[in-house]
């Protein structure tokens, strides 16, 4: 299958077209049009041992990230990327937008216990302002507003345990 991939990198995102085709002979890989046969075998724990055509070997473990996208551990490195299949990529290109933004949901990036809720429905908050404090592993962690806005609803209460990705509060949709 063919995908458009976006690799997140501190020096800027990169976009690559990747196609893999599995046949009786192995995995045929095309990276931005460069075609070659790679040797890919599954390893314990949901990973792969990947042999590049030049014999370079690396262990890679791809996982769906709770925030969407994928994280691939390659040896001790971690690569964050987004993979869109052709149809989705085309649709997004037409819409001129990446993944949904501005839905207004403020989510927990880590699991934890809600220590304090710092904003209530109707409150005006500005980008970066702490709105909820989560406690995990003896540390307090601020959850900040992703943009300016007005709080529509608070979905959690102090003392409550929350999981990664759980909605903590909702801002009015952005205009």
């Amino acid at each position, binding site marked *: 299958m063919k995908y458009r991939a976006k690799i997140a990198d501190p020096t800027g995102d990169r976009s690559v077209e990747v196609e893999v085709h599995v046949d009786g002979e192995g995995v045929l890989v095309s990276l931005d049009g460069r075609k070659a046969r790679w040797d890919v075998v599954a390893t314990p724990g949901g990973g792969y041992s990947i042999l590049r055509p030049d014999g370079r070997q690396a262990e890679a473990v791809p996982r769906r990230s709770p925030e969407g996208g994928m994280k691939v551990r390659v040896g001790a490195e971690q*690569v964050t990327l987004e993979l869109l299949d052709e149809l989705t990529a085309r649709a997004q290109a037409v819409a001129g937008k990446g993944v949904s933004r501005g839905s207004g949901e403020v989510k927990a990036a880590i699991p934890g216990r809600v220590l304090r809720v710092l904003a209530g429905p109707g409150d005006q908050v500005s980008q970066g302002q702490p709105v909820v404090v989560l406690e995990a592993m003896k540390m307090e962690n601020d959850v900040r507003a992703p943009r300016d806005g007005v709080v529509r609803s608070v979905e959690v209460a102090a003392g409550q345990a929350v999981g990664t990705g759980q909605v903590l509060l909702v801002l009015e949709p952005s205009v």
Partner: protein
Amino acid sequence: MTDRLLVANRGEIAVRIIRACRDLGISPVAVFSDADRSSLHVRLADHAVGIGPAPARESYLVPQKLIEAAKRTGARLVHPGFGFLAENAAFARAVQEAGLVWVGPDPASISAMGSKTESRARMKAAGVPIVPGMTTPAKDPAEIAAFGREHGFPLLLKAAAGGGGKGMRIVRSEDEVPAAFERARSEARSFFADDAVYCELYVEHPRHVEVQVLGDRTGRVVALGERECSLQRRHQKVLEECPSPVVSPELRARMEEAAVAAARSVDYVSAGTVEFLLAKDGRFFFLEMNTRIQVEHPVTEMVYGVDLVAEMIRIALGEPMSFASRPEPRGHAVECRIYAEDPARGFAPSPGTIERLRWPQGPGVRVDSGVEEGDTIPLDYDPMVAKIVAFGRDRDEALRRMRRALNETRVEGIETSIPFFLALLDDPDVLSAAVSTQFLEAWKYASPASSDLAAEVALVAAAVAATRESLARRGSSQPRSPSAWRTARPTFGHRE
């Protein structure tokens, strides 16, 4: 009958103590909160007792529950580990009063060292150097200047009524004294309505160097070298080594002598650590004494070839320490504390289930872990999940082994501090040991850019995984077993 020892702790240090018990032929008893029923320290124990809800204050911090657990299981000894009640003199006393054996120093030694003021007074009396400071407010700038001439500059001027860093001024030479004195006085007056100021020596860019001591009931106290623990984040040590790369044999001898004097001043029995600030000019000053086993004790164990936890237990049983002549150091050891946290997201806690775990092995590598593959790290406690320790014939070999060990480790399902350590071990100042306790305040971790290899491999892995997923969703007849992805004939390589 086999002796039983109750481990009044959890996680990595509980596992460490259980191993010492096994090595001594003592039967270990675990305690667990509701969050820890299936934790590794419970699974490795011979007995286990539930002691209440997840929050530590309702379980691991309740002396009576621990003592009751010991009595129910017939445990005769109690080892507190570190953290929780390890330096709680009242708990130590309660254990003894319940007729149990406390594996640690006497409650009186814990109390004496637990008080900042009492411990300083005792150190002064015992001739252990403490940071020089005035004990009464300065009447005039001349008094400050005289103090500086005696103890050296820079000095730190402080408001006697102050706190929180307010009203503090650094004075770098005698010239600066008069002006600084006036400013400090006026600030003190406006912040605290009291213009009394005093000064103490300002130890700039100090190192944290601590000496391991061990005392037994025969009255013997020995020092087992020092550990360098200057690399600290948020006042938490993250990487420790033994010996300190900057301590000469002469300095070591003087620090060990001071540490033994400190321990003797409180009739110290068991393993303990005397922490010092080491100034750039080679002077060192007593910080505090930790009256318990230390997180970083394995680096000393690897270099000195002793088992400190086993010694603590022997000593608690009334035996002398197991070595007649003091063990000699050999080589160098480094420890990295592996936390469940995400360096790429400001070291946010990363609890969760460990889906895949490979610890490093082989020559010169020791791992002390509190978790296994498949375990879930609870939210409720300290994020330290393991310690990786590397030994080498010299510091260079130890550091290279540590890099290898960190690179060999695989943890999936949670994030850990390993990428942080790999970056740290690339820093020239860390490699040349040109650090102080302030080093990591300024040092910022940044996720490294992916190498071309990693990016390519990641793309292929992600695309293969996504293709498998979508084929599986479509109920395709494509083989689903992972091994079916094994290719029969790669273009590279030589399979006939």
